[in-house]
Each structure stands twice: as C-alpha cells, then as structure tokens.
C-alpha cells in the first residue's frame, strides 16, 4: 500500500509547462513593449487584449457553464457607465473608477441571474438580450450622463489619470499616448488575470464540477454537485470581469453613448464569433480566435460591410464543419493541449510480468 502513496493526480504535462513558460515570456515582452512600438500598435494590442478578455469570459459562460448569453453587452455597458459616473459625478480618479464598473456589473448581475435562471435554453438567451436592452434604455434616460447622446470624460479627469505623468516621463511621450500605454497595461493585467483565473478554476474543484455539469447535469447532481450554485458563481464572476473590461475599454476611448456601450455587435456578436471560430470550450480557442479575428479585420478593413458579412459566413461554416473550432481541429490532429486541464494519474510505472 505504501507504493500507492507515490501516485498522484496531476494536470501537468510537458507541453503545458512549456506553454506556461512561453506565456510568462510573452507577458514580460508585453510589459516592456510600449518602449519599442508605435502608438497605433499599442492601440491595436489594447483592442486585441480587451476582446480576448471578453471572449474568455463568454467562453467560461457558454463553453464551460452552458449559459449561452446574448446579453453580455449589458455588463460592458453598465461597467463603462459606472466608471463615467464615478469620474463625472463623484470626481474619482478614472483608474479607481474602473473598479466601480465591476461593482455595478455585480449589482446588475444579481437580479439578472434571479430572472434568467428561471428560463431554459433559448429562453435564457433571449432573456439576457432583453435585460441588456432594458438596461440600455434605462441608462439612456440618465440625463446627467448625456442621456441618449452620451458624454465624454472631462479634460481635467483625463489629464490627471493615476500614473500617466510617470509614463510620460518614462517614455517621453505625449499625454494621449501615455494614456493609451496605461490602458494597454491595465488590459494586459486584466487578460492575464482572467485567463489565468479561468485556468486555475478549471484545474480546481469548481472546474471538475463544471465539466461534470456540462457533460451530464443529472449525473453530476447525483454525486453531490450543486449545479444551481455553480451557475450562479460562474455568472457573477463573468459579469464582474465583463464590467471591469467595459470600464477599461471606455476609459481608453474617453467617450461614451448608450448605443456604443451596449452594442450587441461589438460586445457580443464579435465575441461569440471569436470563441466559435477559435474553438469553444477550450482556453486556447479564444486566443486563436482573436488572432484570426484581428487578421481578418485588418485584411478586410477597407471593404466595410464585406468584413462582417464574411465573418458571419465563416462562423456558420466553422459551426457546420468544425464545431470544435480551429483549435479543436489542431488539437484533435496533434493531441496538443497548451493549457491542460485533464486529470491524469502520475507516478512510477507499474512493473509487469512477475
């Protein structure tokens, strides 16, 4: 029996460790990057990182939690508006006001969850969408924040953002460029925290429970998984992080309107396409998806609506012929898992033949 003690359950693989090291290197490169690249590259990277964050969060909801929400723009919008309210009404520093975005998203998420969790499947999707519309219409009534036309962050607030002066001195750039660098760093922090957090969740008890519920709800319940509480946890976590991301996105643009902040296309349709094309239900999928998405966007930028037209068609084709997305194709051919979550028994090889 003492022999058994040397066996342990692990999710670690050699590829996983290598990918983890590569990720650390990438993060380090990402931190020092503003010293070497132009402002437009930083802006593009900001967009990529925030879209990746939203994609990972939607993937957590739909791919792992089975919660197909079409209303994530509600949390992007309310987070952004809460940040603006903190700056304009309470005079907070915009960087701290981002946290307000997370709080506001949580406050919206609790009643939303009470409501939409009563609905099943398709009803759930439509329910989240209606809630997002209601939130947009209500926010548009908020006259001090510009009502239906929206408003901008006041100059004195954008001029005194925490850390911008230090960045200006460090890279000797203009104030606007320094603000972009700050937003980019915050986006980097957010995407690392969200991706890392989701990976950590999946490797822990919660992830095991999530996988069990996704694969067979009844069987999971019978072994003691509280499926209802799990859904709540996933929904609230994703909402808060989506709210923070929304606040950060609109800190960078410094201008807000209900139509932009609660845009179905920008904050849900694109995000869904990124996840579907990359591969739903994997951490690698959204990363691959956002790269494909950005390449398509750059390649087709001059063709206006053709870009979205082809994005829609690509999503349909992927869903029809490769339902696990591009990453699904790659990993089923090569057996590659950069973020392994499968539990394996590791230990000394069992000697046979005695």
């Amino acid at each position, binding site marked *: 029996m003492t022999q058994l003690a040397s066996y342990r359950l692990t999710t670690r693989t050699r590829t996983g460790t290598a990918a983890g090291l590569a990720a650390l290197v990438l993060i380090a490169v990402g931190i020092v990057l503003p010293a070497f690249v132009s402002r437009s590259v930083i802006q593009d990277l900001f967009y990529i990182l925030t879209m990746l964050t939203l994609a990972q969060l939607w993937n957590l909801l*739909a791919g792992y939690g089975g919660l*197909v929400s*079409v209303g994530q723009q509600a949390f992007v919008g309310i987070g952004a508006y809460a940040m603006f309210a903190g700056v304009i009404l309470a005079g907070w520093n915009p960087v701290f006001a981002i946290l307000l975005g997370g709080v506001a998203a949580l406050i919206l998420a609790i009643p939303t969850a009470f*409501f939409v969790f*009563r*609905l*099943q*499947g*398709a*009803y759930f*999707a*439509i*329910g989240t*969408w*209606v*809630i997002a*519309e*209601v939130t947009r*219409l*209500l926010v*548009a*009534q908020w006259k001090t924040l510009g009502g239906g036309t929206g408003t901008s962050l006041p100059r004195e607030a954008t001029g005194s953002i925490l850390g911008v002066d230090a960045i200006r001195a460090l890279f000797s750039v203009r104030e606007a460029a320094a603000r972009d660098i700050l937003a980019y760093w915050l986006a980097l922090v957010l995407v690392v925290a969200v991706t890392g957090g989701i990976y950590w969740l999946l490797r822990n008890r919660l992830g095991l429970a999530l996988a069990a519920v996704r694969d067979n709800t009844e069987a999971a319940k019978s072994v003691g998984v509280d499926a209802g509480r799990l859904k709540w946890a996933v929904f609230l976590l994703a909402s808060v992080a989506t709210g923070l991301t929304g606040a950060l996105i609109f800190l960078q643009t410094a201008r807000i309107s209900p139509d932009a902040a609660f845009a*179905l*296309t920008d904050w849900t*349709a694109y995000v*869904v*396409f990124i996840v*579907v094309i990359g591969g*739903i239900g994997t951490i690698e999928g959204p990363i691959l998806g956002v790269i494909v998405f950005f390449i398509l966007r750059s390649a087709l930028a001059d063709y*206006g*609506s*053709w*870009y*979205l*037209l082809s*994005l*829609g*068609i*690509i*999503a*349909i084709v992927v*869903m*029809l012929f490769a*339902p696990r997305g591009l990453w699904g194709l790659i990993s089923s051919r090569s057996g590659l898992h950069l973020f392994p979550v499968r539990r394996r028994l590791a230990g000394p090889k069992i000697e046979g033949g005695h």
Partner: protein
Amino acid sequence: MILVDTLVQGILLGGLYALFAAGLSLVFGIMRLVNLAHGDLIVFAAYLVLLGVSLLGLSPFVAALLAAPIMFVLGWLLQSAVLNRVLGKDILPPLLVTFGLSIAIQNGLLEAFSADSRRIPAGALEGASINLGIVTVGVMPLLTFASAIAVIVALNAIFYQTALGRAFRATSDDTVTAGLMGIEPKRIFAIATGLAMVVVTVAALYLGMRANFDPSVGPARLLYAFEAVIIGGLGSLWGTLAGGIIIGVAQTFGAAINPEWQILAGHIAFLLVLLVKPRGLFPRAVD
C-alpha cells in the same frame, strides 16, 4: 376616450408584432429552433417586395405574392442545407449558426441597398382611416391586424386539419417516434421553415408599408417577435397573438406617458409576464 383610443391602437400594433412572431412561433414550436436571423429575414423579404414594386411597378400586394414562393424556397434550402445539420439536443450550434446568418444578412443588405431607410409605397392606403364612432383607426393597422388573424387561422387549419399538420404535431411532440411512423423529420422541418418564410413575407409587406426600414432594423423586430412567442407559450399560435397584443398595448401606453418609454414598456411587460409564468401564458407543447 384617450384611454380607449390608446388601447385600440395598442391592440392593432399587437397584430403587427403577432405577424412578426407567427413564423418564429411555428418553427420554434415544431423543432425548438431559435432562429436569431428571423428579424433580418423579415427585412430581407421587405427588400424583395420593394424590388418588385420599384423595378416591376407592381402593387405591393402582388409583389408580396411573387416574393412568397421565392421566400419559401429560400427557407426550404436554408433548413435542408444548413439548419438541419446543427439541430440536436445542444441548443448552442443552431443559435450560433443563425447568429452568424443574422450578421451576414444585415451586412449583405447593407452592401446591396446601402444604409438609407426605405419604404414600400402603399398609395392611398397610407393615410386612410375609418371612423368607428368611439375611435378612429387607420386602415393600414386594421388591415395588419386582419392579416395576422388570417395567417393564424390558416396556420391552425394546416396544423390541425391536414396530413402535413399531423406530421408537424407529431414531430413537435416526439421526433424519434414520428420518424418510426414513416415521417421524415428533416423533410418536415424544411417544409415548416419554408412555410414560416411565407409568413415572413406577409410580415415584411406590412413592416415595409407602415414604417421606414433599413438593413439594421431586424434584431429589434426579432426581439419583439420573440417576446410575443414566449409570452404566448411554446407552440400556441393564438397565444402568440395574445403575446403580440400584450407587447403592443404596453408600448402604446408607455408612449402615451412618455414617448421615450415606448420600447421600454414593452420589454418590461415581457419581463413581468415571464416572472409570473416562466413558460408563457398558453403553452401547448412541452419544452
């Protein structure tokens, strides 16, 4: 008087929403398919009717009559070539495919017809009204409401009095057993979607004649339609009409209080109904 007037206008508006919703209700009831492109398909059909009117110089009603078989074939093709492949226990694939379709149709229309808002010219019908003693109602809203009733009566007749309807109901209740009885579910689904697209053409006719439309208005119509279907309950077409009327009345009363609250009031009525009855008012089929 204003109260009665608002109520009547709301009920008539509900007719339009019921028209938007009837095709969706049919498809949703039979195959539990959530077609997120439904609103964009209505807008697509409206452009088809507009082409008939502006290029061929037809009356809108004749143009719709010509557009209907085209839409039927498109619906049939869409179902057989695309949607049948993704239908299953998991609702995610059909949801994502129709979402992709929605974005593709919107931007295809944008490319073909630009973002300018259009209207199907309806001639003398546009401003005509009838005095009913207590209230004066527009001929167009009245015609819309009558069409909604006619569509629902026709669909119910197909549903409950024909062999095709029996096949519809059988596949709706239990696809596998229906298959054992010699019904080919995929063929039935294709016909159902084709039929839904005919209803979509009728909805498009009134959408286009009553108000301006442009390629981006689809999702809002989809939302009203879905609310009507859900309020009414899965698989009940009269329930869908009731759902449409509830939303229509809520919207006109909301607008009477403050024009900015029109849409909001409709959504809130939907949320309230769902809070009390999560499966809608008159569900026929079990989800």
